[in-house]
């Protein structure tokens, strides 16, 4: 009975089904992995945006440049006079 032609056919189908099942599982693993990386990429983008926003909320130290402008003005004045 267990070694008959019909049984063999049944085994083949079961094996084929198992292989299909495995492929489907692996495909789902890939899908999950892809979605996880999507989430990770978006999360990184959010953090970057936040960091950029914090960076914007700073008034840059421009004392050197102001001093430089002043010095330039003095030199220009001197040249003119």
């Amino acid at each position, binding site marked *: 009975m267990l070694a008959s032609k019909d049984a063999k056919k049944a085994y083949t189908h079961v094996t084929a089904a198992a292989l299909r099942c*495995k492929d489907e599982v692996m495909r789902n*693993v890939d899908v999950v992995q892809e979605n996880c990386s*999507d989430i990770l990429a978006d999360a*990184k983008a959010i953090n970057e945006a936040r960091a950029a926003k914090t960076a914007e909320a700073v008034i840059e130290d421009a004392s050197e440049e102001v001093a430089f402008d002043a010095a330039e003005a003095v030199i220009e004045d001197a040249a003119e006079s």
Partner: protein
Amino acid sequence: MRFYILHESPGRIRLRADVKSMSLEQADLLEAWLLSQSGVNQVSVHERTFSVTVIYENDRAAICRMLAGFSFEKAASQTQPLAHSSRAMNRKFKEKLVCLVLCHYARRLFLPAPVRRVLGIIRSIPRIFYALKALAHRRLTVEVLDGIAIGVSLLTGDYPTASSVRFLLRVGETLEEWTHKRSVDNLARSMALQVDKVWRRNGSVQKQMPLSDVVPGDLIVIHTGHVLPLDGIIEEGEVMINQASLTGESVPVAKSPGTAVYAGSVVEEGNCVVRVTAATGGNRYDRIVRMIEESERLKSGVEVHASSLADKLVPWCLAGSALTWLLTRNISRAVSVLMVDFSCALKLSMPISVLSAMSEAGRRKITVKGGKFMEKLSESDTVIFDKTGTLTNACPTVVKVQPFHNENADEMLRIAACLEEHFPHPVANAVVRAAKERGLEHSEMHSEIEYVVAHGIATKINGKRTVIGSGHFVFEDENVTILPEDQPRFDALSDALSWLYLSIGGTLSAAIGISDPLHPEAKRTIEALHGENIEKIVMLTGDNKKAAKAIAKQLGLDETLAEVLPEDKASYISAEQTEGRTVIMIGDGINDTPALSLADVGIAVGNGAVIAREIADVTIAADDLTELVYLKQLSDRLMRRIHGNYRFVIGFNGVLILFGALGLLTPAVSALLHNTSTLLLGLHSMTELMPSAKLAALMPLTEDNDKERKARKVSYNET
């Protein structure tokens, strides 16, 4: 081809290719083609889901246009697909892991308990066997602990614990195998790619051509230090050949015309012309893989450190459970101590950490041939550089010929070239090249040549003894004198060049000044290495002391050894090692190979001799010394992570044990906590060690720019 956009975020797009099926080859082709396009930084293709993720830097529209224009036929003609992709292997291991995990939980859910028990007992037999084997060798290793944990839990009827211990061990082992296979694969691929051009001789013309165009019967020219790319028969030239990759015998053998030579062997000395008998095939890659696997280096294990750490815990674990039993006289509590298996967590997290560090290095084209070298790198306190080709550009040039006592400069260079052309050394090549560039031809005017390794050449011209070589060789060994009227000119020779002295008939006839410019980033690299716990940076060179000292001062080296011979390099390293130092040796030449193999970590940089790359423990493809700093930092971080993991595992599980012994935690809760923490640790170990933001901050280049900008600003303000 049509693509559906599945997801988008700035600089990243994920699409699905509109195809019915995608083979592994097609996925590789798509990935290789996309990577070769401008503006694309990173690509990953999943062949099962037809999904393509592209990380790009230029505008999105261009990427979309480019994707729309893709077709497999077009790509196949434009890009060379990877000859040996690791896609199939990665797929296999991924399947194995997923199957392992799913089967484990499926059995738990669906199989009736008695069947599970029988299966569990059968599956435990090998583990118990390994434990007994280790005990028979009088060793207390992790295998013993694993065996006891599994055996005891079976005896006490705690089947789920036995099964989860087995499960975690198997996951760890699979990951370890994957690590190993992947590193071998990366290494082999980088090596297989490197020898892809050969010199073919046609009549008197030599032409460089791709290896794939060579057909049986062609004559190819092989120079010192190169690997034979194909099987063949020697037509001309006497050579010493190292066939270690075929026979395992590392002593080179002499081959003369008419004898057969095989692909994969290395020409250690001499040049030869080989008539090809078999054209290239897939076997070359396989041969490289086999060679690497056979070399003991890799077999000695990736996670040496982790397992020795875990081994150390074994007696403590056993003592702990004995103590618990003595104090409580409660068997199940004593067993609960054994059940919290430290080794699982360690065995799982270590290979993952090492794997991710190695692939992180691999992304920068650094091949590390085993995890233990990263361990050694992080422990190292001494770095030894070979000068030529490592700290310098490896392409020395003749910049000055200074003749003495009325000799003619060109005539002197001609004689020098005539002698030096027999000597395969970068400096010698420089002399020959200089003569050729000035159109100086010569006929063989000398009698038999006598080499003095790493020193120079001696021969007779018209009956007069003629020597050329280093100052040490010419003035001390050969007692060459300088005529009094030449002394001022001799003293005026610049220190910045390395000098080659030529003498005919016992007096100095000429000095040839050779410049070997330093790598632009050499100084920065050495400064950075000093900041990375390297105490001693040494340069070894065959050059004269004057030139070596000048470089040492310029670079801030701790020590230099001038006028060294190849065997001196190796003995210097072993002297350092006996002093208890961990030594990194960086070199690229054939004569560096003894030193490279002796050092704790031998690193081959750039496009050096193939044999150096084969012997080295780490190869850095980029011709950039700062990669060394990166590698050192990466290994430091890896070791910090491994030690952190170790402490966490001991601390956390120690608490579990304590609570278990006190009876505060039920075994089920403690098993759950243990497994969850192990899993989280594994996930944590997968994260990048050197995130790009940190990397940018660490790379001294940007810092330099910053300083420069500031300096400019200051000077601007002053004006």
